[in-house]
């Protein structure tokens, strides 16, 4: 039972950061949703705002870390081109070249042409949206409870950030299963 350096890294990129992102999203969403004046005491507002601040900034930072490490470390492994001597139509020769392995077979080509092509781009929208939300929470602090329109907008952006990251994460998991970076 062992993991290569690349497998270990993909676990860190997808599983560890992905799990942190999910946790931060769940906490942030619950915090934003329940931050209503009728629902919280003044002491509760201070405590909840602190938690919301942590949740939203963790989500934003994790989102940036995930796209940066994914794009500049894992992606080059994925798209590495085989030497000329390798037959790019023969899947048995392409285990170390995931992009070419997927494209070599009709049944897997769409994982690259649709899945990876979407994932590699849409993921970058998540940190921008999550950072805007974290900024709004930091800027207003406990005053956010009196700014319902901004809280609702933050909920929408937060959910869109999760959607973008979710698309990327889901395709990442499927693509890694079809053609692991090893």
């Amino acid at each position, binding site marked *: 039972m062992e993991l290569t350096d690349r497998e270990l890294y993909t676990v860190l990129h997808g599983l560890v950061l992905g799990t942190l992102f999910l946790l931060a999203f769940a906490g942030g969403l619950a915090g934003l949703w329940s931050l209503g004046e009728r629902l919280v005491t003044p002491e509760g507002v201070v405590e909840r705002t602190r938690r919301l601040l942590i949740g939203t900034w963790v989500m934003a930072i994790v989102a940036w870390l995930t796209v940066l490490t994914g*794009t500049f470390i894992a992606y080059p492994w994925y798209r590495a081109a085989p030497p000329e001597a390798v037959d790019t139509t023969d899947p048995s020769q392409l285990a170390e070249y995931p992009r070419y392995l997927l494209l070599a077979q009709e049944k897997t080509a769409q994982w690259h042409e*649709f899945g990876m092509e979407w994932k590699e781009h*849409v993921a970058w*929208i998540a940190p*921008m949206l999550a*950072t805007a939300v974290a900024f*709004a929470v930091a*800027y207003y602090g406990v005053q956010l409870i009196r700014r319902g*329109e901004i809280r609702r*907008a933050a909920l929408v952006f937060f959910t869109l950030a999760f959607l973008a990251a979710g698309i990327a994460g889901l395709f990442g998991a499927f693509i890694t299963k079809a053609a692991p970076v090893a």
Partner: protein
Amino acid sequence: MTAPAETKPNGPVAAAFLAAGVGSLVLGLFVVLNEMSEDINQFLRFDENYGLGSGVGPLSGKVTLGVIAYFVSWIVLHVALRGREVNFRNAFVASLVLVGLGFALTFPPIFMLFAPAE
């Protein structure tokens, strides 16, 4: 417009939301431009052209320019809107439209429409 009692003006938050929309749209535009033109595809290879990463290809340029657009537009909008109470509904709708366009332009069936026929 005036802010609700004892709260700060909403201009800086509107700026942050709009900037996220601008960054998303610029990212989407470069995804499309990359498909449209071989020259732009070569220009976007920031890994080869500027040493930004290794083996990333044109994705390095697309995401770098999207992120630069995000931060630059945020700074500009922040300076323009700080201390101001704006119509947040309008700013948010504009942000959503920009983000929606960004999402759409990164969707392969849409951006591949701009690729030259083989």
